[in-house]
């Protein structure tokens, strides 16, 4: 089966006064029909920018500077190089008008993180919902209104026909996020991009929404890209997961093998640093240092400055994610040179980089000149030292 969305080597940069921020720097992934794909990463990993790039919603001073995005045979992003190596947008790319009329809302819908800011405060909730349905489903006003009310009921808004005329400020945060989900599904797109939709919500409300989305996804067969920083949410809702670090993809796998057969040290470290609600973890194992800035990413593997498994070779080579799964397993990609047999580099012969022992005051400096260390290195106390 072909994927409905293919993203290849996507690059989105921000041109600021301080330099070029490589927010998304060569990211590839696919979305198949009827699946929920997670994009997970810490703040600054570029996951939201990647999501917005798919809909070409990146705003000044950012712009998509490379890569390809294809959706159901339509070319959303594509570049070609002329003889001088100058990259220009290729002609097969959809025009802005085509994007607007054929893709946005109609084929791909988006849900933003902050439900409080995503609805226009001076229009009624129903009116906004109705307008988007009218635009994207070519129906008249009254038909759109009916659809809107049905959809509101579907996402669990009580008394939907009465609340249709209410303004956003009369809804709680959880209710507003339901409205936005209704908005996305009501346009009957093939793909919904959900950009941290439950981050601003309380845990009980988050639970309600996750359950609702899972049910609705099953019912409508819509694919989802679920952007989040929360590994718990990923485990809960996603079928496949992409782990992002500093503008690049570290690991791509089925959700189960990502958590239980982790192949990338970053994912591994991230999971180890999490406190758990279901069991008491006496010692957390933090990742040393801080994420470097995307304006000046480290050479080689981007994670090598904080990686417990880093070797000299990691300083030089920036690996792209490759399939490192065993013969009978499903595809599992990881961008780590320690899978020597796949990457064909001499990893084990290379000298290890001692990130952990140098976790005193220098780690931060290798990446940024803000100077300090967020690491709780073994320098000070009993607990910090007992990490290993």
């Amino acid at each position: 089966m072909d994927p409905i969305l293919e993203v290849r080597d996507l690059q989105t940069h921000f041109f600021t006064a301080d330099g070029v921020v490589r927010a998304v720097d060569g990211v590839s992934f696919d979305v198949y029909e009827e699946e929920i794909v997670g994009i997970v990463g810490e703040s600054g990993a570029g996951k939201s920018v990647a999501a917005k790039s798919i809909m070409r919603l990146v705003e000044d001073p950012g712009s998509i500077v490379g890569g390809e995005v294809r959706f159901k045979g339509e070319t959303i992003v594509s570049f070609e190089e002329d003889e001088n190596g100058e990259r220009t947008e290729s002609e097969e790319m959809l025009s802005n008008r085509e994007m607007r009329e054929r893709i946005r809302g109609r084929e791909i819908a988006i849900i933003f993180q902050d439900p409080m800011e995503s609805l226009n405060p001076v229009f009624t909730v129903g009116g906004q919902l109705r307008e988007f349905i009218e635009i994207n489903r070519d129906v008249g006003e009254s038909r759109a209104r009916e659809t809107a009310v049905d959809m509101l009921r579907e996402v669990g808004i009580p008394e939907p026909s009465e609340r249709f005329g209410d303004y956003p400020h009369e809804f709680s945060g959880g209710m507003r996020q339901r409205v936005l989900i209704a908005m996305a599904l009501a346009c009957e797109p093939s793909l919904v991009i959900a950009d941290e939709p439950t981050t601003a919500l309380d845990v009980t409300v988050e639970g309600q929404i996750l359950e609702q989305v899972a049910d609705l996804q099953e019912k409508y067969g819509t694919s989802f890209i679920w952007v989040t920083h929360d590994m718990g949410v990923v485990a809960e809702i996603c079928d496949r997961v992409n782990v992002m670090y500093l503008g690049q993809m570290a690991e791509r796998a089925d959700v189960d093998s990502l958590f239980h057969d982790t192949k990338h040290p970053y994912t591994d470290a991230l999971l180890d640093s999490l406190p758990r609600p279901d069991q008491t973890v006496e010692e957390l194992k933090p990742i040393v240092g801080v994420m470097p800035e995307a304006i000046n990413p480290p050479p080689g593997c981007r994670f090598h400055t904080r990686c417990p498994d880093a070797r000299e070779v990691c300083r030089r080579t920036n690996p792209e994610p490759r399939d490192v799964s065993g013969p009978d397993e499903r595809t599992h990609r990881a961008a780590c040179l320690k899978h020597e047999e796949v990457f064909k580099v001499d990893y084990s012969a290379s000298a290890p980089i001692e990130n952990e022992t140098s976790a005193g005051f220098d780690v931060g400096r290798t990446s940024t000149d803000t100077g300090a260390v967020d690491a709780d290195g073994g320098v000070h106390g009993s607990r910090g030292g007992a990490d290993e």
Partner: protein
Amino acid sequence: MGIYRYTFNRLLQAIPVMLGVVTITFVMANAIPGDPVQIMLGPSPSQTEIEAIRSRYGLNKPLWVRYINYVAGVLTGDFGRSIFYGEPVTTKIAQRMGPTMLLMTSSYAFAILTAIPLGVISAKRRNKPTDHASRFVSLIGVSTPSFWIGLMFILVFSFHFQVLPSTNLIMPWADPVEVRNAATRVDVLVLSARHLVMPMISLGTLQMAALTRIERSSMLEVLSEDYVQLARAYGVKESAILRKHAFRNAQLPIITILGLQLTGLIGGAVLIETVFQINGMGKLIVNSIFRQDYPLIMGTTIMFGAVFVIGVILTDLSYAYIDPRVTYDEVD
């Protein structure tokens, strides 16, 4: 439902403010150094004359009695009599209100109608030549004295080209019989417009410039909001985003400012009436200051305060009409 209660509340809130205005005016008028009676009667009046005036204006009573009387008078529409004209202050103000209101409303209309498109275009073409030009114009606009613009207009259009009259104002509703060079209603309207255009633009320029700047920044802010992004993400046309999704929100700060800018408009009106020799409230207050006609000064001050307060209430109400959040708290 909410909007009525809100209106009622706003009107209620205006009462102590107006009372405060009356009080401040009264206190200031009574802080005049020297004896007002002397001022009224000129040098060396006779004792009986003084007594007569004192009792006529109630000046022989203690201050607080006079205050109560004055407030009671204001409440019943009696602001006392003008010393210079000998007429009731209210009559005088009623005569002069028309030109001032015409001038102010037309200037505001001019300012709003030019500023909003200018600001929107400026925001839409941010940092493009159009934007720079519009920003330059508005910077000059907020920095130019309105009376000087008036003088320059007179210089160019009245003295040099001799196409527009430089003095007076003709009310569009004036009786054609009483207007010189006018036979029909149309003549009156044309004449009125010709008289109005220069004062209107001189007075409106500063407001226009100030509003353009606010419109631009407000529009820019709204255009970066999530809900605008969302509309874009749902395939709404750029023009519809500008016209519908962003426009209404962007007008909220403008409405607020409109109310507050009234204070500048009133000040400008005083100057413009002087420049174009329009017999309005502004000229009335200036002349009564020169003539030390205190009842009239007090009356006009209070009236200007009332105009401002009413203007602010009106803008608040239109704000509440556009933004449902304002009246929400009032409902429950």
